[in-house]
C-alpha cells in the first residue's frame, strides 16, 4: 500500500478476498463521505456512530457484489441514507440532537432552504467520493491544503516530503485528477438525481405477516 495508487476496484476485490490492508484503505478513503452523508440527517454523535457501524459491518459482507468503480460510493451513500432515515423514523429515540455537539450551532443557519441544502449535500458527496478515488499522496496533499487553521507550504512540505516549490504544481495536478474522477464526471453530467426519500429501493411489502400459531402456550418474552 506504499504507493497508495490502487484503483477502487482493486481495493474492493482485494478486501473481498481477505486483504485486510485493502479494507483499511477503503475505510480511510471513504470515511469522510460516509460521515458527511450521515451528518446531513442531523443525528447526534452517538447515532452517527451507530449508523456508521451498521454501514461498515454490512459493507464487509457486500464487497464481493461491488465490482464497478462507482458501485462502492453509491452503495455507501444509499445505505447511509437509509439507515439514517430509519433512525429518524424510530420514535423510541426522541432526542433530536446532541446539545453538547458544537457543530449544530454552526449549521443552524443553513436550515432555511432545503433545496439549496440538498444541492450542497450532493456537491459534497461528489467532492468526497472524488477525493476517495485519488491516489493516497494526492489525497493527503489536498487534505493538508484544506486543513483548518491553514498550514504553510513549509509545514506541508515537512509532512509530505514534497519540496515547497513543487507543492503548487502538485496541487494543480491533484485537482486536475479530482476533476477526472468518476464521482465528479457523474455529478457534473447530470441534474440532481438523488432524492433522499424516493431513493430508497425498499422492496415490495411482504405478502404476509408473521402469524405464529401459539399452541404451546409459551410466552416468547420469557425466553429473554
Amino acid at each position, binding site marked *: 500500500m506504499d504507493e497508495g495508487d490502487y484503483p477502487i476496484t482493486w481495493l474492493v476485490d482485494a*478486501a473481498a478476498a481477505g486483504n*485486510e490492508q485493502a*479494507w*483499511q484503505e477503503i*475505510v*480511510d478513503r471513504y*470515511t*469522510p*463521505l*460516509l*460521515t458527511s452523508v450521515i*451528518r446531513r440527517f442531523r443525528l447526534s454523535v452517538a447515532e*452517527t*456512530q*451507530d449508523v*456508521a*457501524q*451498521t454501514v461498515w*459491518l*454490512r*459493507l*464487509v*459482507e*457486500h464487497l464481493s457484489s461491488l465490482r464497478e468503480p462507482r458501485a462502492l460510493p453509491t452503495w455507501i451513500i444509499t445505505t447511509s441514507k437509509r439507515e439514517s*432515515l*430509519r433512525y*429518524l*423514523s*424510530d*420514535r*423510541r429515540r426522541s432526542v433530536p440532537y446532541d446539545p453538547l455537539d458544537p*457543530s449544530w450551532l454552526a449549521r443552524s443557519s443553513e436550515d432555511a432552504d432545503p433545496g439549496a441544502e440538498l444541492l450542497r449535500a450532493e*456537491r*459534497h458527496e461528489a*467532492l*468526497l467520493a472524488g477525493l476517495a478515488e485519488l491516489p493516497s499522496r494526492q489525497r493527503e496533499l*489536498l487534505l493538508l*491544503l*484544506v486543513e*483548518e487553521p491553514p498550514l504553510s507550504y513549509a509545514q506541508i512540505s515537512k509532512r509530505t516530503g514534497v519540496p515547497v516549490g513543487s507543492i503548487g504544481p502538485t496541487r494543480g495536478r491533484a*485537482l486536475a485528477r*479530482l*476533476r477526472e474522477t468518476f464521482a465528479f464526471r457523474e455529478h*457534473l453530467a*447530470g*441534474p440532481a438525481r438523488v432524492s433522499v*426519500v424516493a431513493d*430508497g429501493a*425498499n*422492496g*415490495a*411489502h*411482504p405478502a404476509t*405477516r*408473521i402469524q*405464529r400459531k401459539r399452541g404451546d402456550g409459551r410466552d*416468547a*418474552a420469557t*425466553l*429473554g
Partner: protein
Amino acid sequence: MAVTQQRWDEDEHLLDDLRDALREAAPLAGTLAEHGKGAYAWRTVDADLLLASLSFDSSLERVQERRSDPDDDRVLVFTASPLSLELEVTPGHVAGQIVPPGPGEIRVETAEGVTFHVQADDVGFFDLPGQLRGLVRLRCDTPTGRLVTDWVRL
C-alpha cells in the same frame, strides 16, 4: 450543474468547496474510521453461505409515507435465493420465519459479541428474546442451505 462546473474549474474555488465538504466530517472521521477498520473482524469466510440482504424494512416505509405510527410492528425481510428470512419486531417480542417454510437452526449474533441459538419449528417459525435490541445479524442453517443476514439495528 454548469454553474458548479464553472466554479470548480477554478482551483481556489474547488479547494474552498472541498474544505467546506470536509469540515462537517472531520471531527468524527477519526472515530468512525477506527470503527470501520474493526468491522473487518466480522467478515464471514464461507463460500457456501448465502448473504440475505435487507430488502424490506417497514420503518423506512413509514418515513416514505410520511406516516408515523409508533404502534406499528416493524417488519424486516432479508432476501437471498433460495432462502429468505422475515422478522417481526414488536415492543415485547421478536418473531421470525424462514421462507420457504421449513425447520432450521437460527443463530443470533450481536455486534457486542454475544451469540445464541434458537430452533425454528417445522414451518420455519422462531421466537427471539423480546428485549433483543442493538446491532444484530442472524445465521440460519436449514436442510435447503445456510444464510447470514445483513446486520440490522433492532
